[in-house]
């Protein structure tokens, strides 16, 4: 049987959603054997591949670079899943949204520094005005909320998918 191609992506989040995935502990072994992890923090893939079956997306969209990545991911993924509150609503990543970006950077890099005192920019992605959820930019097929989503919810989702059942998303779901 053809293995399911799974990608995981980590944008403006804290990696807690990825940790919740690893929190399947040993139960991850049979899952890993049934899928090909083709992209993500745990593997060395160079570029987001074509024809990905499922992408789990963690984090909000915070820079123009994030937007471009997200669009590429969407165009190359069959089932796009927002994993966790940051991807679903913006969550903590969006707490900066009421503050102008230059003020934010000024406080951190100029007022909050003893030396240098410049706002970094050289070769770096510029922060967008707001950190926003993925569905503000592209169609998201499934949302798994939670901060992070409980490991059981992630396991249930993946196992349903691998067994060819329709992913069930309303059970045991909570925000926060």
């Amino acid at each position, binding site marked *: 049987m053809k293995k399911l191609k799974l990608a995981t*992506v*980590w*944008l*403006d*989040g*804290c*990696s*807690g959603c990825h*940790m*919740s995935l*690893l*929190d399947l*502990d*040993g139960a*991850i*072994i049979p899952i*890993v*054997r049934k899928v090909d*992890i083709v992209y993500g*923090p*745990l*593997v*060395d*893939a*160079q*570029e987001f591949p074509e024809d990905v079956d499922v992408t789990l997306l963690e*984090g909000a969209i*915070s*820079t123009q670079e994030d937007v471009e990545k997200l669009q590429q991911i969407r165009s190359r993924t069959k089932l796009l899943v927002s994993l966790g509150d940051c991807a679903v609503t913006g*969550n*903590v*990543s969006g*707490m*900066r949204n009421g*503050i102008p970006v230059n*003020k*934010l*950077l000024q*406080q*951190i*890099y*100029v007022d*909050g*520094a*003893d*030396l*240098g*005192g410049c*706002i*970094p*920019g*050289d*070769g*770096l*992605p510029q*922060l967008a005005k707001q*950190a926003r959820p993925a569905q503000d930019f592209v169609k998201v097929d499934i949302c798994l909320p939670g*901060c*992070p989503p409980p*490991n059981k919810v992630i396991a249930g989702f993946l196992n349903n998918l691998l067994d060819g059942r329709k992913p069930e998303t309303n059970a045991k779901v909570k925000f926060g």
Partner: protein
Amino acid sequence: MKRITIEPVSRIEGHAKITIQLDDAGQVTDTQFQVTQVRGFEKFTEGRPYYEMPGITSRICGICPISHQLAASKACDAIMAVRIPRTAQLLREIIHCAQIVQSHALSFFYLSAPDLLLGMDSDPATRNVAGLIEANPELARAGIELRKFGLQVIEGLADERVHPAWIVPGGVRSPMTAPARDRFLAAIPQAMATTEKTLGIFKGMLDSFAEEIANFGSEPTMYAGMVDHAGNLQLYDGVMRFRAADGTIVQDVAAENYHEFVAEATVENSYLKAPFYRPLGYPQGIYRVGPLGRINTAEAMGTPRADAELGEFRQRFGRVAHSSFLYHYARLIEVLYALECMKLLLQEPDVLDPHVRASAGVNALEGVGMIEAPRGTLIHHYKVDENGAIVWANLIVATGHNNRAISDGVRQVSEHFIHGDRLQEGMLNRVSALVRAYDPCLSCSTHAMGTPALDISLVDRKGALLDRIRS
């Protein structure tokens, strides 16, 4: 002249980019290590009540949320001007040890073991934890179990594994039950056995990594880490000691005085600020923290098994060891230490006492909390108004301290392994592996987490892209 860019740097915890500049003869002339994301926690927490800080700053990092909760709560304890109940301190130390175990296990088994056990030059398609599960299922499973042990202790105390709301200003939310304690104690021997076995395997491989040991960021620097009055390693409380490259003690710094000795530089090409030892200036005052920084700084670990390992380590590499490759070694010794400590703490007679939280309002307008997070010294510093609303916050996170040393290490490893205008995956992986040795948590560092990744580009003198490898 050519430039190589590694972006994203893979199998690390955060968003980074490396650029390597070559001259016409294919020799490395310049390198840059850039962290490419920022989130702004210091600014957007303004106006929030201080007691929300553990919950909010926890979301800086899902790998070491407990570290941020502890540093935040310690800063809040100072704002409340309370001494927390002794049992609360014991429980905070226990959960902290558990977190060191799970975080170090993640770094070693999930992120770096593929390089170490499958080989720096092995096929990038399988050079990951899934490949490790296929190639060495027994060890992979043991690593998964070790991480699980740490997380089960966290869950057993605090109800959840990631971002629990249990560590609070004034102590912790609920006491430990006797069955929980017994369960944790019963699981320690297995965790110890896994760690000792892994240490044995790692020591057996040292000879085959002689070239990496010699060239992975091996320039001498100062080191820093927390110690107690006897100079033994401390993770939860103590003074931040600076030790010079030649082994002399430079300074002991109490948390509330950190600003006299630790200054921060902004650099144009990275969202990660670079802290330095203020009296020496930048970059002379750079120092390294984290597992290697701590074991270099401390006189001893203070627990028998870890001290035996430290003795052997120092016999091989000297009193102060400089190669960043040895972060892996130091990390494994620290797992042993954390397990030994946890056992001692769990056996304390008053560890089950139900009084675990002190209550008070705002009694001081400023507070500093300092702890040793898995990746090094973590400082949270808050100022509040009379109502307890945050008016100013500064966070200095572990990986930040290592910023300049990682940059220098990238240069050294590039100069040694990269020649010519063609990129070979294996040599680039060594550059990434140097970064991985630090186990940098770039989400913490920039209070941003990004795709943990590496992007290496090779450019010519005019900046034209010649070759690029991304992961």
